[in-house]
Structure formats: C-alpha cells, structure tokens
C-alpha cells in the first residue's frame, strides 16, 4: 500500500491483500535501520487469516521517502498520520526494538488509534552505548557488524535456522542494514537513546499490552524490559528460549504464535 504522509510517499506491506474495512488491522513497526521485511514470517500469516496488515516502512527506510524522524515522538506522530491516511483506528500495534518505543509512544498519545500494544525486543529506556553510536556515525560497516553480533543468540551466530531454507540470518541482517542510506542507523539509535518518556508513556497506556522477549537478547536484555512491564497496567509477557534480539527471524513460529495469541485474547 502506498500513501502520502506529510507530503511524502509512504509504504506499508499488506501481504498482497486488499484492505477490508470489516476486518481488524494489525500494524507492524520495524526497528532501527530495518524495514517491513523483518516481519515477513508474521505479517503474511495475519494478512491471510482475516486481518488487514500494515507492515510500515518508517520514513527514510525501505520504500518510504524521507525525511528521517529524529525522535521517537516524531516517529509516533508519523505513524499516527499514516494510520489516519489509511483510515485505520483501534489497531493492534506491534513494534520491534525502536519500533516498540514508537508503538508505546503512539499508544500513549493516540489511544484512539490503538486497541492493543505488543512490544517485541524492547527496553525502556533503551540504552545505546557510545561505542555503537560513534561507530554508526563514523564507520557504519563496523556498527552494522556490531549489531549483527549482538542481535542473534549464540547458536544463531553459526546458522542452522531450521526454518527459512538456505537463509544465512547474520548475512541477511547485515544486507538489510547496508541498504539504508548513510546516516539512517545513527539517526535511529540516537532517537532511541534520547527517548526518556517511555515509562511515563507506559503508565498512560490503557489498552492491553504484551511484552515479548528473547532469552539471549544482548541488544535489549530481558531485564531492561522489567521497568516497562511494571509500568503497564494490563500486561502479559513471554520469553522465547534461546532467541536473541532478532526473534522475528530466529524464532519466527514462536514469535508468530505469541503475537497471534495476544491479538486474539
């Protein structure tokens, strides 16, 4: 689906399905220097099982034109504008990493747009080390490789993903980040680090929430999600064993099943 948001072209993957106003809508929001394709093994299932799907490319990512949003608040405003352009209300909003912060802020500020909130691989606040930020600014290849090293559980570093035949997950993650324009990663990481209102936003969330964690996540360790879990009023949690930060590709079926259960609870 292509829309115009803030006078720029914006894209969302729909699972090749036409939008049906009679159906519920699931919105998927990707993380830093990623795009809609990280949700491929969850979003397509939703789309072919009775849901409208909007797996959004955030501005300046994938097929959505820039300019980049430089804060989580701006990202949430942009997603709100996207949903208004798509005439969507009361969606189930699912965010990964930076996308989880965006989803959280959106839910707090625009409760009319969100009926359920799922945070995948989240940490509030989301600490970003100076070493990584510096690399993202001055040596993107080094930063991308650091992220790959920290985004997969130890077993996944050597592959054997059991699920997507022939796909070398570390290489795929690296290739996706390499497709982004120069500066996207640093912009996104800086926005994550600067977002300090997450726990206040969580306390304002009125709808049911779900926090999905990877047991071996080194980017957003499960313990870094304890604060937001405590702040959310109605929350359920799940930890995926032997999965890292990129659980949407490392453990696609478990991730899908968890999100599916939450969406239908």
């Amino acid at each position, binding site marked *: 689906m292509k829309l115009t948001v803030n006078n720029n072209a914006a894209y969302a993957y729909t699972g090749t399905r036409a939008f049906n106003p009679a159906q519920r809508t699931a919105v998927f929001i990707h993380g830093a220097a990623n795009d809609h394709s990280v949700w491929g093994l969850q979003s*397509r299932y939703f789309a*072919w099982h009775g849901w409208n799907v909007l797996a959004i490319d955030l501005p300046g990512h994938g097929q959505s034109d820039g300019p980049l949003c430089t804060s989580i608040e701006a990202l949430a405003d942009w997603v709100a504008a996207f949903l208004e352009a798509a005439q969507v209300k009361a969606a189930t909003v699912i965010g990964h990493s930076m996308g989880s912060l965006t989803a959280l802020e959106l839910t707090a500020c625009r409760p009319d747009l969100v009926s359920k909130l799922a945070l995948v691989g989240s940490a509030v606040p989301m600490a970003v080390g100076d070493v990584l930020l510096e690399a993202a600014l001055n040596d993107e290849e080094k930063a991308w490789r650091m992220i790959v090293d920290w985004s997969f559980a130890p077993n996944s570093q050597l*592959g054997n993903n059991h699920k997507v035949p*022939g*796909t070398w997950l570390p*290489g795929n993650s690296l*290739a996706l980040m390499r497709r982004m324009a120069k500066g996207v990663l640093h912009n996104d990481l800086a926005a994550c680090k600067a977002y300090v209102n997450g726990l206040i936003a969580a306390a304002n969330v009125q709808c049911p929430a779900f926090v999905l964690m990877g047991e071996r996540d080194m980017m957003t360790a499960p313990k870094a999600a304890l604060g937001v879990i405590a702040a959310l009023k109605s929350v359920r949690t799940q930890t995926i064993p032997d999965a890292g930060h990129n659980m949407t590709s490392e453990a696609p079926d478990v991730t899908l099943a968890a999100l599916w259960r939450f969406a239908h609870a």
Partner: protein
Amino acid sequence: MFELDTLSVHAGARPDPATGARATPIYQTTSFVFEDSDHAAALFNMERAGHVYSRLSNPTNAVLEERIAALEGGISAISVASGQAALHLAIVTLMGAGSHIVASRALYGGSHNLLDYTLPRFGITTTFVEPSDLDAWRAAVRPNTRLFFGETLGNPGNLLIDIEKVSDIAHKAGVPLMLDSTLTTPYLIRPFEHGADIVFHSATKFLQGHGVVIGGLLVDSGRFDWLAEKSREKFATLSAPYHGFHDMVFAEESSTAAFLLRCRREGLRDFGACMAAATAWQILQGIETLPVRMERHIANTRKVLEFLRSHAFVGAIHHPELPEHRDYDLAKKYFPKGASAVFSFDLKGTRAQGRAFIDNLRLFSHLANVGDARSLVIHPASTTHSRMSTEALVAAGITEGTIRLSIGLEDAKDLIDDLARALKAAERVKQ
C-alpha cells in the same frame, strides 16, 4: 561474526536436535509432515517457513546453502543439480524472451554453449566482450540488457575482469553483475566484497573437492535493489505481481532476498533441477576442509609453475600470478592468497606432441573436470571448448596446443616428475 575457516566447518550446522548427531544428517526423505491443515496451507502460501518437499528444500541442503552463503558473505543460497543448473536458474529468474546479456568472452565452454547456442532459441541473446575492455562492456549495453556475466577467472586462460569497475558499469545500467566463482571459491575471493551481486559455483569442483558428485550453488548478496528507478521496469519478475503465486511481488515480500525467493518458488518448483540430499552432504564434507585444501592446491601450483617456466619445451603459461600474464596486476589486487590451481600452458610442438604429452602422464588423470584432490589434465580445443569456432577459441586465449592442468593435493615433487617425464616423451615424438 566468524572467520572463513570457522564458517567452513560450522556455518549452517548444529548438533541434530532430535538425536544429538554431531555431523549433519542426510535427511533422505521426499517430504515433510504438516502439523495440521492450517500449517500446511501456511507453508504453501509462504505465511510460514519450513520444508514441504525436497525439490524445493531439504534440511541437509539447507545447511549447505547457509554455509556457502556465509562463506561468500551473502544472504542466502540455493543448491541445484549442477553449476549449469545454477546458471540457468539465475537467467530464467531474471529475464524472459527478448532480453539480453552482456558476458565475458572467457567463459567455461558449457556456459558459452548455453549463452551462444541454446538461449537464443528461447529469445535471450548475448553480446560477448573482451573481459578487460571496460568500454566494450559499456558499449554492449542495450535497453533490454538484464545481466552482466563473467567468471572470477576466465576459463581456461585465466583472464580476469576488473570486478569493481565492471560492476560499476552494470549498476549504472541498472542491472546486476553475476560471477561464476567455481575456480576460485570463497577461500581465494569473495566477489560480493568487490561489487558483484550474484555468485554461482559448480560445487562439483573445489568446493566438494574430491570429484565424486555433481552440484551447483547460487548465492545472492542481497544488495541489488530490484525496485530502484533504473531497475524496477527491467525486472518485472521481481518487482511486479506474479500471478503464479497469489500476485506476490517478490521485492516487496523480501527487501533483500527477492531474487532467490523467486528462484526457489518458481524456478525449483517449475524447472525442478534440485540437488539430492546425499549430494549436499558430500559437498558439505568437502567444504569442511576447503581452506586447508585450497592452501595446498595453491602451494603445489606455484611449484609446478616454477618447473614449467624453466622447461624449454613449454611456451606461454597462462597463470595470472606470473608477471608476464596480462592480468598480473589485477590478480595481485583481487587474489592476495593465490589466483588459481587451474591453468593452461602451450606446448612448443605439434598436435601429435600434445597428445603424446597427455598420454604419457601417469599421476595426472585425463578427464573433463577440475578442482579434484587428484591432479587432472585436458586438451580444451578438442574437448571442453570443441564447439567454439577458431575465432572464438583465439578470443578466449586457446590454441591447438593449449593444455589445461588442475593441480591436486599430491606431493609437488611427484607431480613435477610426472610432468617432466611426459614432456620428455612428447619431445621424442617426431615433428
């Protein structure tokens, strides 16, 4: 991220979760049981990932595919029945009738056959260019060009292309560069690091390394943007809805893996040139020792080259590590660990003397293969390249007296003794 030697042994493999088997099992099965009807439908519709039928994917093959993707620094790979099947799969996935390829003249004879004789029958034509002539690559581009194609080391004269410059020309034309890296393997060069977009191997050669199975591997870098303004219209197979799969737009489905997704979902489904699981297992065994074997192949080759250069009955030697080779400087840039264990040389003699040379070798096996643990020899003009015209042979750097060697893992002294004996026998034949 792990280094090449470690990836050669481990990438894509874990102890078998069901049995604890440390070596990758051979999953000798045609098909895989669905959990329930919804799971079956979801697998068929790509809503979920997993194995359905071994023509499309198999867990043993998946380990091999991950391993070569990891070694090449790519995102994904597909294992197929042969190197030729990999080349065919790539071409028919990217284009249809009315399309055009720009290719190096210096190609394996089988690749040349496909491009020059067979594909025109299906409406796909090729312009062959001198691999080192950048202007020729540029000038050959047409509005219907869909692919640049060459070999990391052009068979059999070891002619190089300047990968970075040729890939730049390809990308300016909005098309990918595909390289056949069979002779070099990821141990000697990782073409994606220099700008290539797609790589394929005849895994029959150095990757398996023991001359026991036929197989091909097609690897995607995930870097080419099929939806870019210059490319979107050229690659409708990836950028437009495909009615054969619920109007899926592959480049929207996966930002990085659209090409291999269509290769598997259409090419393997419809053309069916899959690799047997037992073959994949054999190639995995070979790859585990690839770095140590390649190091020895290169060391032996250098000793043989030193001997041949000193022999009066040997004319030109076509190896890019030699200063007199046309592409010596390029080889130093692209092949710091060594250029190749396959090369050709010209005898200063007649065709009869060439035959006598081959017939008097004892350790070198006379056969149509390269990249074996055993040393091999062949006469390209009468075998692998026999269907090429005299002009095409000359353009590819082949003469009637050209001999191609593939240096194996034997003791270099024994190989040199064998060559010396055969050269002496050839010299005795009356001119």
